[in-house]
């Protein structure tokens, strides 16, 4: 008996294992294997490799999606420019409404948010002059600042890692300003989808448990701006564009306090 190592025959063997052969060739390989123990052993070994791989990695199917993946899936889709936005809006509006209700259910403090039927999409449409990332920054603030158990992905205890990671994901050096002077301490941060680009959100908290978030966006096609203020759903944001990055400080403090923090952030980032 001779061991055939002819590539064509070997390729047939793999195709046989993978069910890629038509019935006639399959029968031919079967006959060959019956006469050739070496080849039959190899076919078995290749089949076992597949089984081993499934044994090793099928557990992944039982894992829940990561927070990042869920966030990306919940974000509005980039739309085809030739298609009117209205066709894609309802699904997102529904998802956003569900999200807001979930958050609202967890925290009565946000009850007033729910009294508005408006969603981020509707808001963006209602206020077209607002830079888009700012609307997303406010949405992210509304969702995450009220989060009790998982307000951030990486906590302040791993600040260096947080900065390295987010800088890497944004492809841009990101800094975390200190806001001690305003009585706010870093809670941590997370990566967010920003119209399919990555954005960073840093969260701060004061002794009274009030939270502000700083959103750092790459989605800027504009030149630098001075501070601008917008208010949506009872949350205000102060935003400005500096270099390649857009910033939005979102919170529910008095206008003066928000401005004071914004100046601290600005000074810390532009030194």
């Amino acid at each position: 008996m001779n061991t055939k190592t002819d590539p064509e025959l070997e390729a047939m063997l793999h195709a046989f294992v993978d069910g890629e052969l038509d019935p006639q060739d399959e029968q031919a390989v079967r006959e060959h294997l019956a006469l050739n123990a070496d080849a039959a052993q190899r076919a078995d070994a290749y089949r076992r490799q597949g089984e081993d791989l499934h044994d090793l990695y099928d557990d992944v199917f039982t894992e829940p999606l990561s927070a990042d993946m869920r966030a990306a899936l919940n974000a509005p889709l980039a739309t085809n420019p030739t298609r009117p936005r209205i066709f894609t809006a309802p699904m997102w509006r529904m998802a956003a409404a569900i999200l807001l209700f979930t958050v609202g259910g967890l925290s009565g403090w946000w009850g007033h948010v729910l009294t508005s039927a408006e969603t981020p999409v509707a808001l963006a449409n209602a206020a077209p002059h607002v830079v888009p990332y700012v609307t997303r920054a406010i949405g992210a603030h509304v969702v995450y600042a009220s989060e009790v158990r998982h307000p951030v992905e990486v906590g302040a205890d791993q600040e260096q890692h947080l900065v390295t990671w987010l800088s890497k994901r944004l492809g841009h050096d990101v800094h975390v300003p200190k806001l001690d002077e305003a009585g706010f301490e870093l809670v941590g941060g997370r990566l967010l989808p920003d119209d399919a680009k990555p954005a960073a959100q840093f969260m701060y908290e004061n002794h009274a448990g009030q939270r502000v978030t700083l959103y750092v966006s790459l989605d800027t096609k504009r030149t630098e701006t001075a501070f601008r203020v917008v208010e949506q759903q009872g949350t205000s944001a102060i935003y400005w564009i500096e270099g390649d990055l857009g910033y939005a400080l979102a919170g529910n403090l008095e206008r003066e306090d928000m401005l004071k923090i914004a100046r601290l952030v600005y000074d810390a980032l532009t030194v």
Partner: protein
Amino acid sequence: MDIRHSIASELPRLRRYARALSAGNTSHADDLVQQALERALNKAHLFQPGTNLRAWLFTILHNVTVSEHRKRAARPYEVSDESAPESAYATSPDAHDKLELRDMARALEHLPQEQRQTVLLVSLEGLSYKEVSEVMAVPIGTVMSRLARGRDQLRILMERGVEKNTPRSTLRPTLWRVK
């Protein structure tokens, strides 16, 4: 139906493939999938309904892994505070002579990247040769030769590692090479 639902239902497969490709390094694997997911969502309006969504997603993931691999191959692997694979990106051609491989996961690490990808797409993900050729943008013949070489290497690595006392003669004659 919203394409995001369809994409979400394919995510476990993408994660499984990325996990196997990254030698079980969960954070690196999920990082690859996250990048692919963001790209896919960004380009979702370009997807032709009725065509093969799975192959489309694997193509995007494949392109992400290739560019990441290229980046990482250019410099030493960066070890963050999370666990990094021991040698997922270092494959020396004669490494398997000295190695005692305990299991499939370790054997996989010693395949060249293209062979590892091909074996995983076929044996783990059950993609057809045609789908793999689309995903990797190579002819079917290349898929088949990578698959054959990868599987044969794996088989030899496993046998040498697991059955060290087996006489060499029974291990040798089946390795064939195309080129």
